[in-house]
């Protein structure tokens, strides 16, 4: 990364009561790079993502997007910044009071103030990009399967042609085949847009497929990062245990004895 990073986190801290979730996170993501952050449940992956998006305010540290400090950013400035960002939520987070096409076109109508017919045209094109027909656009999100909802959420995330896309557990809760379909769609969409992508997951198949670079978070720290090809060769015991899904190792699950 010769240029300044697209996203940069420095010494980011966040606690909830006595529980320290982020304990000085440092991470850089270059322009056009796809970084996947892996780690067990409750290690702070989602909190880190929400800190970048401004959904959670870190206690201290620095979060920069395109070199601009976002900590303490005014709401209007943040709204402008968000127009260049897309986000795929773990549970899809589709608005159940709107139809599928209205969900996809939401950012175009509300933030970019496009007329509804024009926004609908774009939404239908984006739905086609993720393999869904125009007729799906007229349905309510509740009428769709989990995999289809994820596709709609992906279409919504890319609807405004964002420069940066975040993926929160994109394949969680999907069967392996649908998970792979979503992975392929993510790669395709990110490449077509030339976007910078940050994904968080504990699905190693997904991480291997969509990442240029992988970082591992454990107890609120980034404990390892490297090219995706290096993940099987690293001597880091935490990474080795996580990647191979081993119960024995330095990462101890907090399981109460029966």
């Amino acid at each position, binding site marked *: 990364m010769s240029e300044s990073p697209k996203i940069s986190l420095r010494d980011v801290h966040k606690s909830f009561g006595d529980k320290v979730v982020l304990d000085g996170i440092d991470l850089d993501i270059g322009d056009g790079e796809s970084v996947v952050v892996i780690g067990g449940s409750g290690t702070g992956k989602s909190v880190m993502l929400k800190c970048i998006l401004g959904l959670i305010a870190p206690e201290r540290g620095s979060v920069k997007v395109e070199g601009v400090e976002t900590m303490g950013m005014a709401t209007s400035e943040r709204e402008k910044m968000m127009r260049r960002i897309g*986000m795929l939520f773990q549970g899809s987070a589709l608005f*159940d009071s709107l139809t599928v096409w209205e969900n996809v076109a939401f950012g175009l109508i*509300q933030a970019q103030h496009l007329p509804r017919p024009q926004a609908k045209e774009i939404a239908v094109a984006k739905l086609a990009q993720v393999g869904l027909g125009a007729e799906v656009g007229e349905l309510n999100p509740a009428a769709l399967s989990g995999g289809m909802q994820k596709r709609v959420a992906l279409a919504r995330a890319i609807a405004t042609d964002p420069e940066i896309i975040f993926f929160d557990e994109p394949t969680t809760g999907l069967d392996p085949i649908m998970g792979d379909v979503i992975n392929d769609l993510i790669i395709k969409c990110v490449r077509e847009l030339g976007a910078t992508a940050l994904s968080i997951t504990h699905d190693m198949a997904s991480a291997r497929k969509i990442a240029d670079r992988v970082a591992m978070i454990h107890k609120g720290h980034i404990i390892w990062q490297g090219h995706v090809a290096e993940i099987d060769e690293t001597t880091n015991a935490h990474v080795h245990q996580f990647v191979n899904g081993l119960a024995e190792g330095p990462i101890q699950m907090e399981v109460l004895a029966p």
Partner: protein
Amino acid sequence: MNFVTAVGRVVLGFFAATGRLSLFTAHAVRHCVQPPIYPRLVARQMMSIGYYSLPVVGLTALFTGMVLALQIHSGSSRFNAEGAVATIVVIGITRELGPVLAGLMVAGRVGAAMAAEIGTMRVTEQIDALTTLSTNPFKYLIAPRLLAGATMLPLLVFVGDIIGVFGGYLIGTTKLGFNSSTYLKNTFDFLQTVDVVSGLVKACAFGFIVSLMGCYHGYNSRGGAQGVGRATTSAVVSASVLILAFDYVITELFFAK
């Protein structure tokens, strides 16, 4: 010492909750008056709060007017004042029972629905999704509901007042033996503008309270389905208590000598 600690904790908790609610209210009101306003969303909420609440508010007003006529006739006959039935019914309905009962019914119907809807949006990350789509949740979710609540409840109460008075008229003329034109004359001769206006001002305040409590508890709900259930209960209970408290305050402002 434990007792003092417990009392202190409750008092501090009360002030913290009041502070949070005040900040939420100030923030919400700012978005109600600051453009952009979403007319389509305001209209949708107006339909939900106003039109769809009409049957329940209308029925409540009708039976209240009928019961009031019977009770006042029965009570006033003890001192030969049966002739005051029409006047007391209209004053009772417009000043007090119309706005309060409509407020309580709407709190149960609309306040609970708002808390459940916004609470579900919170726990399913739909509110976070709004933010990531460059849309302020206060503008998109809260402001339309507050505007619709404050404007639609006075309209509902106005219609409810008419239905309630009609309920009294129905019982007065068919059961209590009043002459139709005498009943109507007694109704309108003693009715003053302030009776109706004070009721509509109350309705405006109650509509705002119902929407505010529904939005506040829904927006701050946590912890899945149980949290949404708790938010719904809190929205109805707090709105009901605040309606009764503000009923006293507004009555004091209008009628205390």
